[in-house]
């Protein structure tokens, strides 16, 4: 079994992992844009956002409500969006999900996907808006494939997140 006797040091490492793994994995999700894909069109799903949503929906009690600020800032610095864009949008999305949590009586997987899809659309459309007012003139049709990819990628990322969560709590 995993729960063998642990030394103090192992115990500390496990506890630290439990605390920082979600944030680290989200920042790494944002850092996927560092992969050497020089794309001509925005097609890569925003993995930072997907990780954030997965963690938030799997473990609602994990993060304080303001966590969108530091994580959004990290995403802005890595993604090429105008700084402040993800800070604003991620925090708004987290506040929205929080409100939704108060109003819904029960929750199942399909609802999670629906909520994530809505959040993805809000963030990508909002990101387009902020990118456009700071100098771009991209049309909405350009990000439709990206939205589709991202919504379809959410379940996979959520599964990955659940795997990480099991490791985190082991």
């Amino acid at each position, binding site marked *: 079994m995993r729960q063998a006797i642990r030394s103090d040091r192992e115990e500390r490492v496990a506890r630290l992992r439990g605390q920082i793994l979600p944030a680290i994995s989200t920042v790494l999700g944002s850092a996927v844009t560092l992969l050497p894909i*020089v794309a001509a069109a925005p097609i890569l799903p925003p993995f930072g956002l997907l990780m954030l949503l997965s963690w938030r929906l799997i473990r609602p009690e994990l993060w304080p409500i*303001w966590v969108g600020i530091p994580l959004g800032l990290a995403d802005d610095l890595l993604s090429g969006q105008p*700084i*402040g864009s993800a800070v604003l949008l991620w925090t708004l999305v987290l506040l929205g999900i929080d409100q939704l949590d108060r109003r819904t009586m029960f929750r199942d997987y399909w609802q999670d996907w629906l909520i994530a899809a809505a959040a993805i659309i809000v963030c990508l459309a909002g990101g387009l808006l902020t990118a456009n*007012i700071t100098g*771009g003139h991209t049309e909405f049709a350009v990000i439709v494939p990206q939205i589709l990819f991202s919504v379809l990628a959410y379940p996979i990322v959520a599964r990955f997140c659940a795997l990480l969560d099991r490791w985190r709590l082991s």
Partner: protein
Amino acid sequence: MPPQNKRRPGFSRKAQYGLFASYVVAVTGALVGLLLVITAWVDPRGSNAVRAAITDLTSPISGAIRAVVRGAGSAGTAVSDYFDAANKNAAMRRELEGARAKLIAARSAEYENRRLKRLLAISETSPTVTAARLVSSSASSTRRFAILSAGSTSGVRHGQPVRGATGLVGTIVEVGLASARVLLITDAGTVVPVIRISDGLPAIASGTGDGRLEIRSLNAGANVFKAGDIFVTSGTGGVYPPQIPVGIAIRAAGDTATARPLADPAKLDFALVQPIYQPLAAAPPAPEEPAE
């Protein structure tokens, strides 16, 4: 599974205040984010120092990965090509029908191509600031940036044009010590003055954000473009040196045409940074300064 009730953390006054404070912090943070976006709106070039420092740190990582996985560069376009397959199929069928008539046009295009290559050989001798790799891009953002693995220590400055062996790539918009951010010509904020290579017809090429260019004629008149037209920079405005290949028209409609950029940044290995063609003409008041 019922959601946990986080609204009432218990009877502890301290915990209740803490919860309230976290909401205050979140809303304040969102407002600060909005403020930052508005700041970037008012002054697009400000607040770049932090980001330039970050790209300085991350570009060696991207460069190392790129060196290992050379083929990954085309993966992105492969995915988008696949997504676009149905459209492309229909377009190809249409194209096939008119192919025979276009064969002659293609021959002339081939001739143009050869001429273009000769031009290229000439412009290859033009002054170059530095040669560097394009290591990554803003693949999830709607702005089209790429990260270049050379910065101010190699002489790279803001506003310099970047080109590959096959054509124009973009302009430098942010410079760090050992990395720089390139605004690609496919970004919807880029405008490049071009001429048609066959007869010197002046036009404006601007990005559409989806990997294509839109060419607009400066001369009023219907149906001036045809598919297969090749465009090179004109040198107007003083930023881009003349005769760098920009794009090839794939579809013409009235006095605009959709073009494919000749330099595919995804397949580029090295890009050349060139000095601003005529710095005086390219100074901010110039109307052709590429918008950002």
